[in-house]
């Protein structure tokens, strides 16, 4: 397979190249390669995008999403690899569920799907899950997802034990006693709506705790979906003194503020909550200066039944796989905050490195995972067009720039937009 006349995003910049894949790998990169191929004139080719934080809901919540619909959403969104969180039913806290996901992903055969195991049995924060067995079955990291391990000593043990298997803890940072039923960020808009808020410290305290553990133990740790300006600063300072901390954020944190909940839009209910403009700007600055390593969508598909209810009863989460690239391109690259190679790093290179996955770069010998997008196309987000079962997005009707046209996984086209 050959991609022709593409603007290819490499570490060294954007170059007009042809790409030839053979046996699933990039075999040749050259200005002009002989042979039939896909004409990518006008398209920019990124290393296959990697989303290290998604929810696929299978097993257990197939009404919201399943592995097949999630994978379809992924390749439509330009992702060649995704990592799915363990909050399924049953919880992915054992090799059986992890194997099930690996097998289903293989049967579906769209993108590479890497399971993330739970840190504790049943995500209950009491006993360590079978971390070694999950790794052997294909888990690429562990996470308590959606909550923090409350007991600090257990978290310390988890980080150490996981390290024996080369796994990192991906930390959702939330002090439950501070959140105490809060559903939005505490500030003007929590008062305006009368919805219970939670303060930044609820997130920051656990970010700080995980940093302290990583520093004390000399181990790496990864912070999920950073949303506060103060959290960004904690990570920046930790990195400056050599702590092996990495971090992700999500498109909604650098695109929206809590103003989005003013009319009680449950599609803007997400955890951590949308915060204020100073947080949004700090997240962008964190991405720009390298404090925040990567972008993940925290794709959290829900059925309409879970959202068309009173705000407090609505599920947290945004269906994000199909808007992640366009929002990131629009907010970060088109605005000049990030160059195209930097955007590729945030959405592919860094997640690959953090989790030790193959991929994340376009070079001879690398897996032929490629994402081609038209960066000049503006389009309007319409959840009805989502491949994901989850139509829950606060971005409906929003005009964005940059549209994924083609997703190649291991040298095979897994998504190609139908041409009009």
């Amino acid at each position, binding site marked *: 397979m050959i991609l022709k006349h593409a603007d290819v995003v490499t570490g060294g910049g954007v170059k007009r190249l042809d790409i030839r894949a053979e046996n699933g790998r990039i075999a040749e990169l050259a200005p002009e390669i002989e042979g039939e191929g896909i004409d990518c004139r006008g398209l920019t080719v990124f290393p296959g995008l990697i989303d290290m934080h998604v929810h696929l809901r299978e097993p257990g919540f197939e009404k919201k999403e399943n592995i097949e619909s999630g994978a379809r959403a992924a390749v439509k969104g330009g992702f060649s690899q995704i990592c799915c969180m363990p909050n399924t039913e049953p919880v992915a806290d054992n090799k059986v569920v992890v194997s099930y996901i690996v097998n289903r992903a293989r049967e579906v055969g769209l993108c590479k799907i890497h399971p993330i195991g739970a840190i504790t049995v049943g995500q209950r924060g009491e006993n360590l899950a079978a971390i070694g067995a999950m790794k052997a079955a294909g888990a690429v990291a562990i996470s308590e997802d959606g909550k923090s391990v409350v007991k600090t000593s257990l978290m310390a043990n988890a980080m150490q034990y996981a390290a024996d298997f080369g796994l990192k803890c991906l930390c959702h940072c939330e002090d439950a006693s501070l959140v105490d039923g809060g559903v939005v960020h*505490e*500030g*003007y*808009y*929590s*008062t*305006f*709506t*009368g*919805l*219970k*808020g939670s303060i930044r410290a609820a997130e920051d305290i656990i970010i700080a705790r995980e940093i302290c553990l990583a520093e004390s133990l000399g181990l790496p740790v990864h912070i999920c979906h950073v949303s506060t300006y103060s959290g960004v600063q904690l990570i920046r300072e930790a990195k400056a003194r050599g702590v092996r901390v990495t971090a992700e954020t999500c498109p909604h944190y650098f695109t929206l503020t809590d103003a989005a909940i003013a*009319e*009680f839009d449950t599609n803007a209910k997400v955890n951590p909550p949308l915060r204020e403009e100073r947080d949004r700007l700090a997240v962008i600055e964190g991405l720009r200066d390298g404090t925040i390593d990567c972008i993940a969508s925290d794709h959290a598909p829900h059925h309409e*039944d879970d959202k*068309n*209810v*009173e*705000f*407090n*009863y609505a599920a947290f989460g945004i269906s994000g796989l199909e808007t992640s690239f366009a929002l990131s391109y629009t907010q970060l690259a088109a605005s000049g905050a990030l160059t195209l190679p930097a955007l590729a790093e945030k959405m592919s290179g860094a997640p690959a490195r953090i989790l030790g996955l193959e991929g994340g770069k376009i070079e001879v010998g690398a897996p032929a995972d490629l994402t081609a997008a038209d960066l000049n196309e503006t389009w309007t987000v319409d959840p009805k067009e989502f491949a994901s079962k989850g139509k829950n997005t606060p971005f409906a009707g929003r005009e964005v720039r940059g549209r994924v046209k083609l997703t190649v996984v291991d040298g095979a086209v897994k998504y190609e937009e139908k041409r009009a």
Partner: protein
Amino acid sequence: MIHSKDIVGLYELSAEEIDELLTQGLAMKKLLRQNIKKLPHLMGKSVTTLFYENSTRTRCSFELAAKYMGAHVVNLSVATSSVQKGETLVDTGKTLDAMRNDVIVIRHPVGGAPKLLARTVKAHVVNAGDGMNEHPSQALLDMLTMREHWGSLKGKTVAILGDIRHSRVAKSNLYGLTKLGAKVRMFAPRTLMPQGLDTMGAEICSSREEAVEGADAVMGLRIQLERQHAGNFPSLGEYARFYGVNDEILKYAKKDALVMHPGPVNRGVELTSAVIDGENSVIEDQVLSGIAVRMSILFLLTKEEIA
């Protein structure tokens, strides 16, 4: 006339609409004072009260307001917890609509629930209190009481003291009072004062004295005992001593300042008994204003204009 189908909050109402609701409410209050309790305004109309939270006075007030004007009234109490929810609000709303209800009066523990219902149903929706968001009929009855005493609210100063954070009454009053040209001062323990009210037009005070100084009305808000258990303050006794309104504090207000409270009042906590029963207290009069203003709400919402 009221331009929207529903009354979900005073934030959404214009000064003109609030003014009309109060004017009509004053007329209703006059009739009630004459013990006239059979009016034709809602004849042939159905009103359902849909309460997801316990309430005696607000529900009773809406029910009497509807009945005094000849409406059919059905009361629905829905016991809810987040664990056992049963039918969804949207489905309940559709059912009530199918039964040809003209008005649904809803109280709900979650902010925004009346808006969700209003979007779902054809019936007029009246918010009887949603979470920590709004309690428009309470604020309207407070303003009706003030208007009756003062004529106009313009330039008046209202001090609100108590659990501002959890109070939908404080916010509705803030919206309504500022729209009619009054100033609103607020004071609460820091643990019970939310952010952003200054942006919404309130003057946030740092002491009782500062809040009450020269005020035309002093309003206490109910302190729930559970706030003590949540650690918002050490004890009701300490609350009363440092945050309550007593005769000493009341001296800072204008001589004829109105003493108000949405009720039910904890005697000796938000206000001392001497203040509650003092000559400036209009707490009982607020109750009659409540029925009058709810009659006004129900009437103006359902009124059919004949060209």
